[in-house]
């Protein structure tokens, strides 16, 4: 196999990894900072893809980005209001919104479950036109993805240092303390989920435009894939207080996830295994540390039952 095939595969993995890392960054905000497991992520990802596609198809490639993020904000706001103002359990509100978004997404696509953007002008075709004739002509997708990831990472790094960002982190840490600091935790939860879902929507929009089509299943399993990437990132960057390092870890985790997946595909793993693999990674990443902490207890039990210890 020629070397260039590997380079191509690596580049594709990098592009996909960077685009999906936007969802990982969104989960970093909602899951790691706000301590809310946002199960509306799948639907919101698809919403960003469909809204972005419809707006791009109508001839507004840049507006498509804004519209997708705006749609994500609306979706995040709905999830947040359900859990902070209407007494719906946090996990349940994500599931409810996710289910509702399925209908919304088909409605956005005008009743279809698939839209084609083969000849549509998008930020990717714009970038390709811009880079034409330069040595980077073949890296146009990468360039768009890289710009988006850098912008979102820098925004999050700065945002989490502000008073609002601190309040969001504290809400995930100790809501009582937030209240006694004269801040309404319902407000911080709403803001946090709106911002996170704007990035999820952006992620879906860019993926659809990069692959020039959107179908209703584009976001299925995204929450697990993103969570797996986030947890892979944690093993590199740790769970310390260095936010920029952790953001970089989240992006790295997403890229590594895609690279490993690519390699597995080369070794003839069927493509449909992606979601099972991501599930297993999440299980290992969460259950691993738990079992490790239980290990002394298990060992103590075994030793005690075997009757080998002095009584």
């Amino acid at each position, binding site marked *: 196999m020629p070397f260039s095939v590997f380079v191509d595969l690596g580049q594709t993995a990098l592009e996909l990894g960077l685009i999906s890392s936007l969802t990982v960054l969104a989960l970093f905000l909602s899951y790691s900072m706000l301590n809310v497991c946002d199960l509306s992520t799948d639907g919101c990802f698809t919403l960003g893809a469909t809204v972005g596609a419809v707006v791009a198809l109508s001839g507004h490639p840049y507006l498509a980005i804004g519209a997708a993020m705006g749609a994500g904000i609306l979706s995040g706001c709905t999830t947040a209001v359900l859990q902070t103002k209407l007494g719906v359990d946090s996990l349940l509100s994500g599931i409810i919104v996710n289910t509702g978004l399925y209908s919304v997404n088909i409605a956005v696509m005008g009743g279809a479950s698939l839209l084609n953007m083969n000849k549509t002008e998008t930020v990717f075709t714009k970038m390709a036109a811009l880079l034409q004739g330069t040595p980077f002509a073949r890296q146009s997708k990468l360039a768009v993805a890289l710009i988006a990831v850098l912008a979102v990472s820098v925004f999050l790094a700065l945002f989490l*240092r502000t*008073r609002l960002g601190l309040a969001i982190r504290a809400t995930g840490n100790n809501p009582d303390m937030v209240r006694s600091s004269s801040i309404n935790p319902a407000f911080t939860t709403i803001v946090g989920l709106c911002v996170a879902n704007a990035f999820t929507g952006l992620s879906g929009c860019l993926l659809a435009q990069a692959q020039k089509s959107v179908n209703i299943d584009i976001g299925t399993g995204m929450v697990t894939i993103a969570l797996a990437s986030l947890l892979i990132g944690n093993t590199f960057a740790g769970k310390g207080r260095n936010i920029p390092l952790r953001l970089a870890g989240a992006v790295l985790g997403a890229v590594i996830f895609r690279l490993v997946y690519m390699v597995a595909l080369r070794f003839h793993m069927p493509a449909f295994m992606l979601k099972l693999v991501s599930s297993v990674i999440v299980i290992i990443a969460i259950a691993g540390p738990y079992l490790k902490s239980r290990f002394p207890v298990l060992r103590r039990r075994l030793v005690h039952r075997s009757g080998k210890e002095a009584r």
Partner: protein
Amino acid sequence: MLSIRHISKTFYPGTANAKTALDDLSLEVAQGDFISIIGANGAGKSTLFNAICGTFLTDSGAILLDGQDITLLPEHKRAFHIGRLFQDPLRGTAPGMTIEENLALAAGHGGWISTVSKADKKLFREKLSLLGMDLENRMRQPVGLLSGGQRQALTLMMATIDPPKLLLLDEHTAALDPAAAEKVLELTEKIVAQQHLTCLMITHNMASALALGNRTVMMDRGRILFDVSGQERRDLTVPDLLERFRASSGRALDNDRMLLGTDA
């Protein structure tokens, strides 16, 4: 300063478990008062604090703070003017965030998108050095690494960094070891005196209830049994308190920790 007018609160009304925690209770607190509150288990002391802070709405009555009617104000809005410390030292701070970040949230300087300024940091260092716990040199460490006494002292600092109109202390030294409890109590006295704070303190320690502050209120069954200050209070001893409780309520005081005589 704080005017509590005929407030009542019944939990689980209309059920077999109905419990009247506050029963037509009224209390006038003057500016600069430091009131110690004592009472039997379930007398309604913490419930009174919850009512003042807005953890729940009272069933009837009104609460005025500095002339403003706060009866219906949500909890986080009352927190602008009310600082509160709980018995559990873990409740007042965010463990995963640094000392500096915790203080920044509590101080609340600047708008939503402001960051911690150099002036803020300098202020935090000065304030922390007053605690005498070397926390000013650990500002970038997460609060989760601190001991219970250090966390409670930090919470006290956070609650008073912008002097509140009212400081509520809910047995805030009860979960600490004796040395730490003494230290935190000493800091409390110092800060309250320096900032001329109006303060209510629940305690189960009868001796410190009489030693600290200028007024002592005894609660029982959601009502105020007696309220002493001035010379009358200075002449009072712990046995006198127990006797007055028996005389007013017709039974002996049954606060287990009071009777066991654990200190602080």
